[in-house]
Every structure is written in C-alpha cells, then in structure tokens.
C-alpha cells in the first residue's frame, strides 16, 4: 500500500520559511476555502498554518549548531487523531495514506487536536473547523498537472531541496533511500504512532586530505634545479 510522506533534511534546511509561505498561499487559494488569519496586519497577528519552521540551538556557545525544524502533520501510519473523531470527519485515505479532515463534517470539538501528541492540527478561528496539512492532496492527485508538479507546494518551494516527497512504502523510492542511507528518523517514536514523515539528522561531510597530497613533488613551477630523481617515482609520475 502506498504511504505518501515528506522527508525533511535538517542538514540542508536553512530556515527560510519558503515552505511556510508557499503552503499558506496554495492552501488559502485552493478549493477547500481560505486558510484564515486573525488580525493579520495588527498587533499579535495570528492565523491558521499547516506548516511552521522553528529554530533550535544545540550545544553551548561557541560549540553550537543551529537547527531549523519544519513542523507539519506527519501523516502517521497509526494516526491517533482519527479514531477519536466523533463524526468521522478525520480520516486516513486508503489509497495513499494521507490523513485528512472533511471540513463539511467537522464539528470543531478539538478532540483530535488533543489526541495528536505533535500538536499538528489547528482550529480555523473563522471557519470553526479543524485543519491540518493535506500534503496538497488537490495537487498531488491532479493528473492534469505535469508529473513534476504533482508535489506538495512546500516541496516545490524549498530552495535547498530539504524536502523530499514520495512513497515511504516503496523501498526503491527517493524518500526510502534517503531514510535508509542518511539515518532518517521519526518524531516521538515512543507513542507508537508510526509517523510517515521522517527527518534526516544533521551530519558533517568532511573530505580527508593528507598533507603530502597537497604538495606536488615535481612541481614544474618551482625554482629550477635537478629533479628529485633520487627520491624515486612519485604519485605524479604514475597518475594523471
């Protein structure tokens, strides 16, 4: 069975919030109605977002790492928010595993938001229904779009390609490969919710260069003199 999900590479994310704004733009102008704001140009602006980027500082100065942490619905394989819904408005799609809310059935009781340990659901203060990341379901299932554009808005917007999108149940997909090879992990695994979205950790990529690899023994630009033949063949004599 297909389980669509995002893989977010914390090693690459620069915290630019392009995913946040592109998500907001796509969702607020989509068929499901606006993603409303409250006091958008006033003091204490607030509103509904499906995606937020938080920033954490790891370690103690000066040995610190800044980690930008994009946070959106994880489309759990065992979503605890779905069975608690009294109306059946909250559901997980059978065909692709995306967790969705039927805005026409939701009564706005907020119980599903209590049942999500990650706090990924938000009540729309104007429409009074629960909303959450749809993984741009109207976009990824739209066959009139070219295949390269059948991706969530956040994935297409990310300037550093920190967000990957695909089927985590297909072992050969780009996302499965990234999870497998780059140490992909889930958030709060202790609750058994089995989030489909994974995160890739910070990792250091260093090239190992030894001192003698930096100096050519037979540098043609050095001061003229007899070649150091006595030292025998160097790496430069045998390699191109």
């Amino acid at each position, binding site marked *: 069975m297909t389980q669509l999900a995002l893989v977010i590479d914390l090693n690459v994310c620069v915290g630019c919030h392009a995913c946040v704004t592109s998500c907001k733009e796509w969702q607020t102008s989509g068929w499901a109605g606006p993603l409303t704001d409250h006091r958008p140009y006033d003091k204490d602006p607030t509103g509904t977002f499906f995606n937020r980027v938080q920033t954490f500082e790891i*370690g103690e100065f000066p040995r610190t790492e800044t980690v930008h942490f994009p946070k959106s619905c994880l489309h759990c394989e065992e979503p605890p928010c779905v069975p608690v819904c009294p109306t059946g408005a909250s559901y997980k799609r059978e065909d692709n595993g995306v967790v969705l809310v039927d805005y026409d059935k939701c009564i706005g009781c907020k119980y599903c938001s209590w049942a999500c340990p990650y706090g990924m659901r938000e009540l729309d203060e104007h429409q009074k229904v629960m909303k959450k990341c749809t993984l741009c379901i109207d976009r990824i299932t739209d066959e009139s779009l070219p295949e390269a554009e059948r991706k969530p808005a956040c994935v297409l917007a990310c300037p550093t390609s920190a967000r990957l999108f695909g089927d985590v149940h297909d072992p050969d997909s780009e996302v499965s490969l990234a999870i497998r090879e780059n140490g992909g992990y*889930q958030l709060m695994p202790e609750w058994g919710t089995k989030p489909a979205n994974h995160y890739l950790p910070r990792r250091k990529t260093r090239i190992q260069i030894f001192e003698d690899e930096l100096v050519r023994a037979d540098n043609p630009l050095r001061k003229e003199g007899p070649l150091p033949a006595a030292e025998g063949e160097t790496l430069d004599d045998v390699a191109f």
Partner: protein
Amino acid sequence: MHPAFSVIFLTTLIGVGQGLFLALVTGQVYSLANLLQPQDSVRFYAVGSALSLAFLVAGLVASLFHLGRPERAWRAASQWRTSWLSREVIVLPVFMFLVFLYGVIHWLGWTQPLFRIQGVIPVDATLLAGVLGALAAFALFGCTAMIYASIQFIEEWHSPFTLVNFTLFGIASGFMLAAAFSAWSGVDLVGFYGAWAVVFTLAAGVSRLLSLRRNARLVHKSTLETAIGIRHNRIEQKSQGFMGGSFNTREFFHGASHTTVALVRLFFLVMVFVVPLLLLAASYWLASPGLPLAAFAAQYLGLVAERWYFFAEARHPQNLYYQSMA
C-alpha cells in the same frame, strides 16, 4: 491544557444530574427493602427527576458552546465504534430519556407492581426505569471519563484515577444535592442522603489525593530530544515559528501562574472535601433546611475549580515545541 468552561460545566453539571438520579433510585430501592419510609411519587421522585434532568440539560447546553459548529452536533453520534466522545454523545440522551421516563412514570403514579420477584419484592415500572437509568448513569460516567483517560499522551489523564474520580465526584455531588433537595422539600431523608454524600465525598477525596500524588511524581515519556529527534542534553529554542500566538499556544496552555494553579488546588481541596462536610455536620445539629443547600453549592463551586485544575495540571507533549511557554 487550556481549561474550557464549556467542558468544565458539562462534566460537572451532568455529574450532578447522574449522581442525583442514582440517589433517587437508591432511595427507592431502600424503601423497597423497608429500610426507609416510602416517599411521595409526585413530590419527591418526579420533582427530583425533573431537577436531575435540569442539570443534564444545562450540561448539554454548556457542551454546545465547546463546539465550533454546534449545528452539526448530530453527526457526533456516528463513530461510536472508536470514539469515546461519540459514545458519550449517544449515552447522554439515552440517559436523559430514562430520567425523563422515570420522572413521568412517578408523576403519573404508575406504581402498581407489575410482578413480584420470589413473591416478595414488588417490581413496578418506576423500578425498571430506575435500574436501566442507573446503568446508563454509570455508562455515562465511563464515557465521559474515558474521553480523557483514553488519550495516552496526556499522561496525567491516562490513568484509572480519572475514571474513579469522575464517577465518585458525580455521585458525591449528586447525593449532596439529594440531601439539599430533601431538606428543602421537607422530606425526612437528609440524614440518609447526607451520610452517603459524606461517604462518597471522602472516597473521592482519597482517590483525588492519590491521583494528585501520582501526577506530582509523573515522569513524562516525551522530551524535547524525542520531540525533535536531536540527541543532545542542551537544546534551546530560539524561535517557535510565529510571534503572535497560534492555536497551539492557546489550546494547550492554561496561561495561569504557578501560584494561581496552587491556589486553585487548595481552593478545590477545601471546598469539595472540607466545607460541605462541616456544613452537613452543622445542619445535623441545627436541623436547618438551608445548610445542606449551602453544602451542595460549596461543593459544586469546588468541583468547578477541581475540573479547572484537572485541565491545568495536564501537560500535553505538544507543549515541548513551545519551550518559552512550557
């Protein structure tokens, strides 16, 4: 968690209604066994049922204020297979109907025995409705408490104490109201209901103190490390992704200071467990009809504070993502 008054009033008011109904049925069963004087059907049982129903209706009305879309509330009965909230939505009207039925049968005076058990115990229509209603009352306590107890991440709630507390608090306040109602209507049952109210209040006190101790010692499973998946002892949040607040910062934080929360705890401990018992003891000596009513009022006020504290003490794991507020 943010204590919403709609839910606080829903759970406390229907608790009183359920407890009062259980008290009425208990009284009837006692008089059936000749342990108590039989009471007047219309003046005591019918009016008592109406009072119970009034509390249940008030709770139901309060619950509608919790919903963003109350006009769709009827849909909430559909997912009874998986959702305790849905089960409550079904059991509450069923219970209300049985209370109504019990009151109406008493009011119409249909108390002729339909049959006798072993030729001794006369069973009439009111007793059947009463027993069914009592079962529904307990089912409703279960559904209401399980809404909270079934969420495994809210570890303060995920405990049998939630179930026991909701049930005992409801029964205690209901018997307290039954004592007040008896005193007010001049029925000689103040001592009977008052004694049971004291027993249930003390039992609830033991259970609540144990749950307070459990929650004070609770070590949460989730930490900031598991929340963002970075294994380091020192993680400091620099930004929560917005400045003006969001649903996450409004719904999951009570926003009160530690002092306020501690004061509310002290207030409910005194008002639920101490003041009503003193007032009942005083009414026993003074035989005043007003004091049991004051005891019920004090306990109800305390229960509202208890339910507020119940929400305030619960720490949702999503709060880990909002370190400046957590």
